[in-house]
Every structure is written in C-alpha cells, then in structure tokens.
C-alpha cells in the first residue's frame, strides 16, 4: 500500500453520461430527417448541410483559439449540432456565401459572444436563421421543388411552402401523405413529419429530453389553430395542416428543446411550450410572416430566465 490513495467527497461513482453523448444523441435523432432531405432535395441539401456544419465548427474553433485563447471544445458535438440545425432551417438552394454569414451569426453572435456553450441566451441556430431571414428575405424564402435525388443546387425549379401558399390564399395544398413524408417545399430539414417524429421517439427513449416541451408546443398549436378553424374554416386552415407544415415539428422537437435556452423545471417547460405554441399560431394566423416558429422560440428563449425564476421544481414536502 505504498502507492497513494485518492481522497475526495462523495459520490464516488458517476453515471458515465457526458455532454458529447447528449449532443451526438441529438445528431443521431436528426439523421432520419437528413436522409429524407437528401432524397427530396439531393445535391443542394448535401452542399448546404456540409457547408453549414463545417463553417460552424470552424468558426467556433477560430473564436476559441484566437479570441478566448482557450482549448477548443469542438469535439463536444455542440457546434456540429448547431451547424446541422442551421442547415435544416435553410432552403437547399441557398448560396454558400450566405450560409457562411448565417454560420458566423449563429456561432459568433448566438453562442460565442455570450461565452460559449452553456452561456448563450438564444438558440444559436435560430439566431443564424433569423439573421439571414431578415437580411436576405428573397433568398431565404425561395424553395426548391422536391424531386428524387435531384442533382441540381442553385439552378433547380422553385416553389412555395404550404404556409406561404396559405398566406397568399391558395387552397390547392399538398396531400397529408406528402406532408407526412416530406414531399413539399420548405427548409431542408423541416419537411418530413414522420422523420422528425422518429427523432422525437429516439430522444425520449434515450432520455435526452422529456416530453414536456415538444408535446406542449404541438398541443397548444393544435388547440389554438383548431379553435380558429372551427370559428372560420374558410379563413383558417385545419390544425393538422398547421402541425405538419413549416418548422413546427422541427422547432418543437429539436430547437425549443435545446438544453441551454429552455427552462429547467417541468412546470417551466410547460409554460415555455405553451408560450411557443401560442406565439407561433398568432404569428402564422395574424402576422405578416407566414411562419412564426423561429420568432416564437427566440421570444420564449428571452423569457426563460424569468420562467426559471417563477416556475421552480416541485419541492419535496412543499406547498
């Protein structure tokens, strides 16, 4: 027993869970949606995804190395995740230089300006998307028409999303089957409801997230748009169309559930989810933008510290 023994406080064992395990878990959950987008949007989807992921990782590395002068933590998977989520929120015909600006906004402004992983207030990928949406409204709302492994990138045929069609009063919408599969115009990762729900199931089974945020968003949106639909079916679309179209499922399952920018208690998560559901529905039905998911999540991100203050975990033996 000449070698030294270690003295440290309890507990003496650890679950083995890690930040990177959670990040890579979310990446795995995003794979079905990525495959669907490669199928329908082909080369464009591949280019946008690769550029976005590579740019996010690179920017994070450079900022950590040259501004923070600290060891790079890009292997934790969070920058890859931001890159992939940003790509999922972009049209698959977006030029490379715009993607780079989006990645810089996401990582530089959205994440690193607050101090890096864990310190940011807003979902970095959404900061990138909204930055681009406001700066380049034309490019950000021109959507390629889905095909079968199309080999076109910026030169393909373009069309509209379900939500913009509805905003313009068009009544000829894709079928439910197409919306479930993802055979419709839209950002490259948001189109397939089935693929996104598969991801949700994976996240829940692996206990990476709990049901509170995604389910409360989906239910609130369904109920609110459902009431409006019952009031005036000619003006307001069926709630199922709202759930299946635009970024609602992508946002509810993958963006709003971002650990860093969502509340910590169960009750807080429900408030957060209901808030997103209401804001999204309001923007979609009464706002100028056809889509409201990004703004709704960012607004609720800003309210998260306040929610954490008022909605605490249920205290043992408490009132």
């Amino acid at each position: 027993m000449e070698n030294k023994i270690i003295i440290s406080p309890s507990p003496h064992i650890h679950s083995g869970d890690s930040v990177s395990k959670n990040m890579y878990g979310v990446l795995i959950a995003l794979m079905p949606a990525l495959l669907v987008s490669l199928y329908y949007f082909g080369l464009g989807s591949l280019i946008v995804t690769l550029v976005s992921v590579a740019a996010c990782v690179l920017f994070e590395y450079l900022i950590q190395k040259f501004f923070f002068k600290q060891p790079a933590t890009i292997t934790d998977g969070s920058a890859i995740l931001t890159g992939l989520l940003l790509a999922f929120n972009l049209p698959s015909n977006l030029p490379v230089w715009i993607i780079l600006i989006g990645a810089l906004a996401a990582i530089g402004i959205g994440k690193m300006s607050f101090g890096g992983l864990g310190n940011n207030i807003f979902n970095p990928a959404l900061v990138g998307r909204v930055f681009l949406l406001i700066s380049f409204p034309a490019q950000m709302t021109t959507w390629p028409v889905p095909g079968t492994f199309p080999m076109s990138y910026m030169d393909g045929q373009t069309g509209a999303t379900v939500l913009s069609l509805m905003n313009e009063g068009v009544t000829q919408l894709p079928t439910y089957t197409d919306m479930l599969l993802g055979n419709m115009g839209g950002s490259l990762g948001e189109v397939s409801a089935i693929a996104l729900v598969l991801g949700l199931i994976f996240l829940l089974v692996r206990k990476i997230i709990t049901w509170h945020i995604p389910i409360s968003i989906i239910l609130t949106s369904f109920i609110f748009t459902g009431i409006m639909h019952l009031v005036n079916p000619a003006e307001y679309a069926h709630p199922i169309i709202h759930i299946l179209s635009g970024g609602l499922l992508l946002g509810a399952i993958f963006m709003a559930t971002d650990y860093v920018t969502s509340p910590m208690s169960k009750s807080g998560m429900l408030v957060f989810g209901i808030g997103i559901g209401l804001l999204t529905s309001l923007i979609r039905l009464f706002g100028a933008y056809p889509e409201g998911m990004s703004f709704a999540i960012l607004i609720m991100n800003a309210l998260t510290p306040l929610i954490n203050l008022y909605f605490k975990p249920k205290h043992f033996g408490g009132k």
Partner: protein
Amino acid sequence: MLRTFRIGGIHPPENKLSAGKKIVRLAVPKQVIIPLSQHIGAPAQAIVKKGDMVKTGTLIAKPGGFVSANIHSSVSGKINKIDSAIDASGYKRTAIFIDVDGDEWEDAIDRSDNLIKDCKLSGKEIIDKIAAAGIVGLGGATFPTQIKLTPPPGNKAEILIINAVECEPYLTSDHILMMEKGEEVLIGVTLLMKAIDVKRAVIGIENNKPDAIKHLTNLASAYPGIEIMPLKVQYPQGGEKQLIDAVIRKQVKSGALPISAGAVVQNVGTSFAVYEAVQKNKPLIERVVTVTGKKLTNPTNLLTRIGTPINALIEEAGGVPENTGKIIGGGPMMGKALVSPDVPVTKGSSGILLLTKEESVRKPMQNCIRCAKCVNVCPMGLNPTLLMNATEFTNWDMAEANYIVDCIECGSCSYTCPANRPLLDYIRLGKGKVMGIIRARKA
C-alpha cells in the same frame, strides 16, 4: 405497480458482489481502537483509564450530552491508552485503545443462539435498555436510537417503518442479516413497536432482494402488525423522508421531523441490535460489515468487533488489490473516502468498498449546459445547479431561498451531471454556511 418515492431518484448499477455470501465471524484483532465519536451528537466521555482491565461488553464511555450514546468495550483486555486516532471522518479524534487478552464476556450477556420471543418489559424499559446498550442508527446516520424512540411532547407515532431497502450499490450487510437473522429482526421490530406504542410496522425492502422479501414475508405471519412491503429499486430510497414517502405517501415538510407524518423510521440492522440488547443483554459491540470491490478476490460480509482496523477486514476479503485508487467507508454514493486502511470499524460502518484507480478519478468539469438532469433526479425537488452557482458566488440569500438546507447529500446530482460538475461538493459547502447563518440569526 411497486411503490417508490415520488420525486427524482436514480438507478446506478447495483454491483451487489457479496450478495448471498454467508456472514463470516472475523477473528478478534490484537488491538482495537474505539473512537468516542461514533454517533451524531456530542462525543462520549471515557470512564476508564490507562491500565484498566475490561471485559467484552464492559461500559467504557458514557454519553457526553443529550444527543450522545454509551460505548462498550468490544473485546476483553487492558486499556493501552486514550489518545487521538484518525477515524473514518479523516480527522484525529479521541479513541480508546485496548490490547486484547482472551475473550472474556460480561456475565449478564446471553451468548447462546436461543431465540427469545417473549418480553415482559414496558415500552419505557425497552427504550432504557436500548440507551444502555449504546445503540445508534446502523444505516449510517448513527443517530442515537433512544432519542428517535422518544418523540417530542405532543407527537404520537402511528407507524414504525423499517428501512431494509439498502439502496446503496455494493452493500449487502442488511440483506444477509435479513436472510440469516430474520426471526431476530422481526422480534426486534416487535420490541420497537412496543417502545413507541404502535400497532403497525412496515418493513420496506427493494425488489432486488426477492429472497429476503419471501423469507421475511413467511416469518412475518407469526408476528401480528408487521407487513413486508416490496419497493421499486430507486436510489436514495433509504433516505428517511424518501422511505416515508414511498411507504405511506406522506411528504415530511421542510425542516420537520418524520414524527410530524406520524412515522418513526429505524434501520433493519438497528432492529437486530435492539433484539440483542433487550433480549440478550448484549450491547452494540459488533456489526455486519460488507467488504467489497470489483478487484477483491473474495467480497464478503463480516461480523466484526467495533474498533477492528479495516485492514483486517480487507485481508479477510483477499487483501488490497493492485491498482486500488480509493478505500471508501460505506457505499459509493454517500460513503467517505478513508485516508488510511488503519481506521477502525465503528457503529456506523456498513461497508468497505475498494475502487480501482480508474474508477476513482473524476473526469474534468465542463460548462453547465442547463440540461436540468440534476433537477430531474434530485429527490428533494431542488435545483442543484442553481444551488452550486449560489454557493460559488456566495449568494447565501439565494441558496437559502432555494432550500439548500433540505439537501440530503445523496449525490444523485453529481452522479448524473453530463458535464461532470461537482454539484454536491459545492452544495455541501453552501449548506453548512447557510445552516450557520440560520443558527446565528436564531441566537
């Protein structure tokens, strides 16, 4: 659906390596070191001096305050010295060193294996015998038992809950005690019921010990009022408040005693000690200790005299393996890392766990990603990462407002944290600080 407590909880790998290993009586060592602080509260006061001769079971120290306990010699021989010795806490504290000579017991102690069921004593007399025997909570908290059996005026116990969950990974001493001494345990429970005047007792056992559940359920039919309740495996179910919640669905309020929910909780090992004290006149001088670890050649359960250096226990289990990084007194979740293998076994020693170097090293801490996993597992419904931050920035008001004093230090938060943050280290520090502030305010 099996019951368990309703907030938080984790399920670490059980690693019950010594499960089913029969209790082995460890040889009496050449010298024992009996610390005067083996319980929560004031240290006991020695009533012997150097050179005195004592028998096994002789009273050698008396309570040093209201919350304190008697201590008896666990061997026969001569007092070598009364001096400071490093104990399981890591601090040097006063202890009585006794050189062993033979094994001559006090005459009053019944050393036979005869089972004595009947007890003519009143509740008060039972409590007095328990106090005289120096019994403390043997689950690890070591609170003097007679005090828990004497509720403050105005409170009346309605139910006795026996803690037999043994939720700590690795530990098996309570399990094997139930298997080998089931009848004694149940008589002990009956005595405790009489002591606090209740008609109902529930023995809570986690479902990973089906043999103990079956064995005690069979025996319990002969003991009216005692019910065996299987519980879902969930750490920290052995926490007093958690066990009460699991068994009778009542949550003891912040700062309140279990008696406010009408419950008195005792450990299953304690009820065995109560049997021996009341029916056999035997003070608390030995206990079952699990010696375990993945690299040990022979993980085992040893009936050990109090004061035996843990070295002797480890030798019995095959000796200290190569590559040992940590020696823990107790289980891996709440046990204490021991500073040396020379510290003695005390009344609260439920186990000795040896971890390898790899198991002993903590991984580097990363930024908090606010994943709320610590919040989800906290059995007290606290926000561990908030409490860690409050402590780090010495914001004691915030720590107090978020119930830092309710932390039971179970370690579920640190165990779970994906960013390897030392949540409990900070919370423990902050809790001590805030408790001091509260005391100062009251004074």
